[in-house]
């Protein structure tokens, strides 16, 4: 029932908004927020690629004891496995980038990237 083009559109529009933010914002933390939006959009896109209509979560449970494989409708677990690790790695890299932003603030006294070249 879910219109697939609509699902893909949400992820693509989020990605484009994040890209616009990265290109135009001047504050370092704003740029990092835009990068995080892009990251969420890419994760959403990968999950949508693995989805099928009326799919179930790829976990065997005790409530269907006789699994008839010809009617079973699992979604694809491979993109889920990739995204699962990508989210945690994303947190680590975001923390590292924020630390670099703090160091930049200590050094230049500002977070505006256009004013950073003025002082040395």
């Amino acid at each position, binding site marked *: *029932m*879910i*219109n697939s083009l*609509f*699902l893909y559109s*949400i992820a693509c*529009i*989020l990605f484009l*908004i*994040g890209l*616009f*933010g990265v290109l135009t*914002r*001047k*504050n370092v*933390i*704003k740029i*990092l*927020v*835009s990068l*995080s*939006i892009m990251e*969420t959009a890419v*994760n*959403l896109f990968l*999950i*949508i690629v*693995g*989805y099928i209509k009326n*799919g*179930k*979560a*790829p*976990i065997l449970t005790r409530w269907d004891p006789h699994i008839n494989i010809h009617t079973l409708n699992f*979604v694809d677990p491979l993109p*889920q496995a990739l*995204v*699962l690790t990508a*989210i*945690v790695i*994303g*947190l680590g890299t*975001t*923390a590292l980038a*924020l*630390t670099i*932003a*703090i160091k930049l*603030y200590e050094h230049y006294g*500002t*977070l*505006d990237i256009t004013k950073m070249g003025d002082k040395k």
Partner: protein
Amino acid sequence: MYVIIISVLGITMIFAAFMAIYAKKLITAIISLGLIGLFASIIFLLLAAPDVAITEAAIGSGLSIAIYLFALRHTEGQEEK
């Protein structure tokens, strides 16, 4: 039913992304980012990916916001002009 829920969540996510980019205060942008993470985790749950939904709910709306706020405290809340 899922169509309605996912469309409402998705459109709210797009508005929150605009708010995160155009907000004057940095803390508004960070809280909008948390909103995007939370709604993304609900969409993951509706798309039959519970593992990813748990991870995104813990990280996207909890830990990530915390590290942004700690970084903001170290930079004395510089506002964008």
